[in-house]
Structures are given as structure tokens and as C-alpha cells.
């Protein structure tokens, strides 16, 4: 916070520069690009990362056999170090000899440039992020599903409700709280996306530059200016802070109700 109003070189005393750092980042053409990309990434990541784990949890919950195996399989990617995951996907995405294009070629389907095409880059990053992080959400949904009394489903079945109706009228209402909590947590987590764009598309690609990558650029590559990086971090902190406050209110309200 203090750094964002200063010019520092870590040798002499810091110099107070008022809002100059904020002015500099607002005038950077990449500023809005980075925010827009971050919002886009968050949006697509939520569409995938919010819905997919929920349905996975429902499917795993309905299984009669191999439930334990699938629980482990879904959670496995979370145990891998994030950079390892990204390097693995870098090989999957390689447009020359990567796994995905090799498979597509084998099936005589059109290939994609994945991270190296302006149209597919963002979606490619979201796929990595979803695969790597959905395990946690799935396990939490599973735990919530276990808490829904079986009698409710039996009663619904007696009334002649089909699978979708049971899901809509029994499962979702009972999971409203956990769904809301995970929504907040996922927004806060996905807005801080860094490793995927940093490793897969570099810090220079305007199609995928995110707020965190821009902070990195300000501090370490283009500007070598910790003041600008701190100013951008403060803005991100304020945005994420708003979501965090909403999350805390949600949790405490539910706590009072309990």
C-alpha cells in the first residue's frame, strides 16, 4: 500500500510520488486489456469450474461401484504442483507433436493451434485451470451431497419426480449455501490467475495478459518499477477484497442461522 505511492530503488530513501504510479498504470494501454482478459478468464473458468465439478459430484455420488476410485482420480490433479500441471499441458497443447493434435490427426479431425491461436488461447488456459483445480470443489460438493437425507429422494421418487426434477427440487436447494461459498472462493481464486498465462503464453501476449501477469511485467520485465506493480496490486486487492467481504457476510449469516 505504502509502496504504491512511492518511487523506490532500494538504495536511497524512497521518494513520495503521490498518485503518479496510479496515473502511469491508468495510461498503460495494457491496463484495460489485462482487466478485460482477467474478467473473461474468470467468467469462462466459472462456467467450467463451477458447473463441471457439481455434475461430477452428482455422478460420483450416484455410483454404486468404484466410488472411492473416482473420488481419488478427481482429486489427483490438485495434488500435483501447479507448474508441473502447466508443463504437462504445454506438451498436450504443442501444435506440432502434442498429444491433442496427435489424437485429432489420428481421428482425421481438424487440428488446433491451442495456446498459440488468438481464438483458442484463453479457452486453452481455462481448460488447464479447470482440470487442475476442480478436485477441491468436487470433494466439497460430494460432502454436501452426503448430507442430504435419503428420505427426501425416496419421497420425491414416490411422487414420480424424474432425475432432473430430483436434482432441481431436492439437491440444489440443499446445496445453496455451499454453492454460494464456492462461487465467491472461485471468483477470488480465478482472478489471481498467473501460472497458466505466464508459462503457456508468456508475459507478452495481449490476448492472454492478466492482471497478475501485468503486475509481474511492471515489477520484473518491462518497467522494473515496484511502485507501479504495487499500485496495480492495490487495485486488485480492492476488487478481491469486495468479494471476500461478500463471502464473510455470507458465511456469518449462515452461521447465525445455524
Amino acid at each position, binding site marked *: 500500500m505504502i509502496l504504491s505511492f512511492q518511487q523506490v530503488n*532500494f*538504495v536511497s530513501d524512497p521518494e513520495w510520488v503521490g498518485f503518479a504510479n496510479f496515473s502511469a498504470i491508468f495510461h498503460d494501454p495494457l491496463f484495460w486489456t489485462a482487466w478485460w482478459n482477467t474478467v473473461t478468464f474468470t467468467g469462462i473458468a466459472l462456467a467450467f469450474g463451477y458447473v463441471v465439478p457439481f455434475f461430477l459430484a452428482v455422478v460420483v455420488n450416484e455410483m454404486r461401484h468404484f466410488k472411492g476410485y473416482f473420488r481419488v482420480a478427481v482429486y489427483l490433479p490438485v495434488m500435483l504442483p501447479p507448474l508441473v500441471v502447466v508443463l504437462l499441458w504445454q506438451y498436450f497443447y504443442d501444435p506440432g507433436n502434442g498429444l491433442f493434435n496427435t489424437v485429432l490427426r489420428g481421428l482425421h479431425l481438424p487440428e488446433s493451434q491451442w495456446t498459440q491461436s488468438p481464438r483458442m488461447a484463453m479457452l486453452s488456459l481455462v481448460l488447464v485451470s479447470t482440470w487442475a483445480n476442480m478436485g477441491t470443489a468436487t470433494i466439497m460438493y460430494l460432502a454436501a451431497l452426503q448430507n442430504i437425507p435419503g428420505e427426501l429422494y425416496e419421497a420425491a421418487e414416490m411422487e414420480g419426480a424424474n432425475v432432473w426434477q430430483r436434482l432441481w427440487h431436492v439437491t440444489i436447494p440443499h446445496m445453496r449455501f455451499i454453492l454460494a461459498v464456492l462461487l465467491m472462493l472461485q471468483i477470488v481464486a480465478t482472478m489471481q490467475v498467473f501460472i497458466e498465462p505466464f508459462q503457456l503464453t508468456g508475459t*507478452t501476449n495481449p490476448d492472454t495478459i492478466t492482471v497478475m501477469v501485468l503486475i509481474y511485467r511492471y515489477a520484473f520485465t*518491462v518497467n522494473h518499477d515496484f511502485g507501479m506493480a504495487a499500485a496495480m496490486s492495490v487495485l486488485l486487492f480492492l476488487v478481491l477484497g469486495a468479494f471476500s467481504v461478500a463471502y464473510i457476510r455470507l458465511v456469518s449469516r449462515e*452461521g447465525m442461522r445455524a
Partner: protein
Amino acid sequence: MNRGTFGKVAVSGLVAFAASIVALVTGCSKEKAAASESVTTSITVNALPPETETFLRQQFLDDVKSFEAKNAGIKIDAREGKMDPRTFTTKLAGGQLEDVFYVYFTDPANLIAKKQVAEITPYLKDFPSVAQIRPELMKVFSAGGKVYGLPWTNYSMGLLYNRTLFTKAGLDPNNPPKTWPDVRTAAKKIAALGDGVVGYGDYSKSNTGGWHFTAEIYSIGGDVAVKDGETWKAAFNDDKGKQVLQQLKDMRWTDNAMGQRQFLEWADLLQMMASGKLGMYIATSDNIPVMVSQFKGNYDDYGLAPMPGGKATLAGGEGFMFNAKATPEKIKAGLKWLLFKYDNPERFDEQQKQEATAKRPVGLPEPALWVGDAAKKYTAAVTAYANLPAGNYAPFNAGSGGVQLKLEPPLAQQIYAVLDTAMAKVLTDQNADIGALLADAEKQANVILATVK
């Protein structure tokens, strides 16, 4: 968690966070007590080679021993690592930066402008051999008539090509491309070999894209930044800049001669060429031993030619600078160390002999660092112990005479990071708008260049 508990956790978390920030900013720069009574000056230096480089590390440690024996009272505390902009500021802030540290030619201007290095001008009068270092290279480490460091190596870019693939593609390896249209024609023929072979490779990540763009625009007579009165201005948004990007776009999309995989950085092209999958790229001669030692390449496969276009070539290099907080005693001791280990005409013969005995490459083509007697001594030592297929570098040696050596622009790494974007877009987006990319890059580069003092 109820509200009260949450409050306590939040407050204690904030206190811990604030404490860690304070610790980071104030650093932990406590001077170590003198190691022993007999040592009057102890200096920390970096560039100690890692343990994986057995020969170089041993050579370095032996040099430390002989230096300390010759200079009683000076103790060298050697650390690993070279210049990494990502950790430099952190080390500086934490009081961990060495007294004498390694830099690339792209670093000094920025470090001098930010007052993060010590001036060494007053101490140079005690070291007469410095006068024999090429003046234009001393300029890299100078500003406003004051000197802040010393160069150690110097290299220039050329066209590095795979002689074996040239022969396979029906090209003459002793007559490499001289112009960019020649490069394009050769790249098409090499890519036609199929089997994943790439005709011409280029970078677009981690500042290497901008670095190559600079070398390429220099080669056709263009510029990246020019001094306009007292200030610097971006100069690449012109026909020459467009020509560089258009040539790459044509080779990538029209000819399909640059491979599908892009966002490449430094080691990628070396690896591709060492594994026989790349025909040409622009590089400095020091890439050749790396391809052999790290990527199992073969010296006979590689040839070096002057930069296509031949108007000018980008010259870079490495050297050393001094911590802004170093005392005069430490600066003097540091200079003694540098002029013993790195810039020492009296040891040229001994050093080249050591390299040749260890079967390391001697005789790679590189521009001179020295003038006068020192230059003669250096050439004699290299000629005496040369152990590389000199014929492979004949085109470079024969054709480089008329090529102007041009240094990197001010704040080069920052400009390169900006130009990476144009390179990445041209190589990954068939519909990239070259004019718009250069205009964007120009805007950003001018903001950076406005800070050059």
C-alpha cells in the same frame, strides 16, 4: 467461525503480513563481522559456476586461491548466479547483492539511471590495462563521463546454420544466405525436407523476441531507438520494422517454413538445431559449444555466417558492476579481482591453454574486446590453441569485416519485452496487423525511453 473469532484471526493475520512486509523492505543487511584478523578487505562476488560445470567451477576456485595468495589481505567470498532481473531488486532490497556482480550489456544503463551501482572512475588510474579495452565497450558501462563497471566478453550476431541440413536440402553449406530473401528461399527448401524440420526459427518469449527483432532491423539498416536532442525515441515503427515483421510473417504463414510451435525462448532453438530439426537462426557464436555440451550436438554440423542484410549486427556482451553501497576498499579489491580473473592480458596464454587442455572450444569467432598490445596477445593465444573446425566459420570471419557493430538500445531488456508482443503475434496470428503492432509497441517503448537520463 463466529465474527469475534474471525476478527482475531484477521487482525493477527494482518499484523503478521505487515511485519513480513517491513522485514522485506528494511531488509536484513547486517554486515558480517570480519572473518579474521589478517583479512583487511572481504568482498562478495558472483558468477561462480554451478557444480554441474565441473571444469569451470574448479578453474574459478583455483583462480580465487591464486588471487588470494597474490593479494594478502583480500578475501573473496564467491557465490553462484549471474544477472537475473527478477531477483536483482529483491537481493538489493534485502542487502544480499554481492559487492561485485555480473551483468549483461543490456543492464548497465538502467542500473546507472536508478543509482543502483557504484561509480569506479577514481580507482581506474591504478589499473593501466583498462586503457586497452575497446573504448566503445567501456561506453556501455559509462554515463556522463563516469565509469561504473568493466566489460568481460563481447559477441555479435550472425546466421547460425545446420550444414548437414543444407546439404540434404541441396544447398551449398559453404555459401550460406547473404540477404533476407536468400534466407527465405533456403528456409523453404529446408522445411520441404519434412519430418518436422523447420527452415528458419525465431524467438517470441522472455525478451528474446525483441532481442532478435533488434538484430534483424539493424541488419537491414534500421534502428530501435535514436537520440533526439536530449531524449531517446523509438525508431522501429517504419518501413524497416514492417519489413522485418513481414518477412517473418511470410516465412511463418505463406511458406510454412518456421514450424508450428512458437513462443520459443533461448534454449528452444539450440535444442532444435542440436537435434537436427532446424536449418537456420540468428545467434552468437557462443551457442555452438552449448549445443554440443548440453544438447549432444556435433561441431561439424554447424556453420556461422555474417548477419543477412549485412548493414549492421547487434553486439552484446557481459561484464561486472559494483554494489552502490560498496566501500572504496571493496571497489579497489573488486577491480583487482576482475583484472586478475577476467580482463588480464598477462594470463591470456595460460587461460586458452587451460581451455584447450580440458577439450573446451577455443577459436570461436567473436569481435575483439581489446585494442593495441593486448589485442595482439589475445589473438596469438587463441591461434596457438584453436581446436574447432575453423572452416565452418570462414563465411563469418570473411564477411564480418564490413558489418558495423551496433550496441543494444538503452533499457534494452525493457524494450525487448515490449517488442516480444509484436514477434509473438506475427508468429501465432495469421491475421496479425503489423502496422498496429508496431504503433502499439512504439507507444510503450517511448514511455520507457522517456525515463533514460
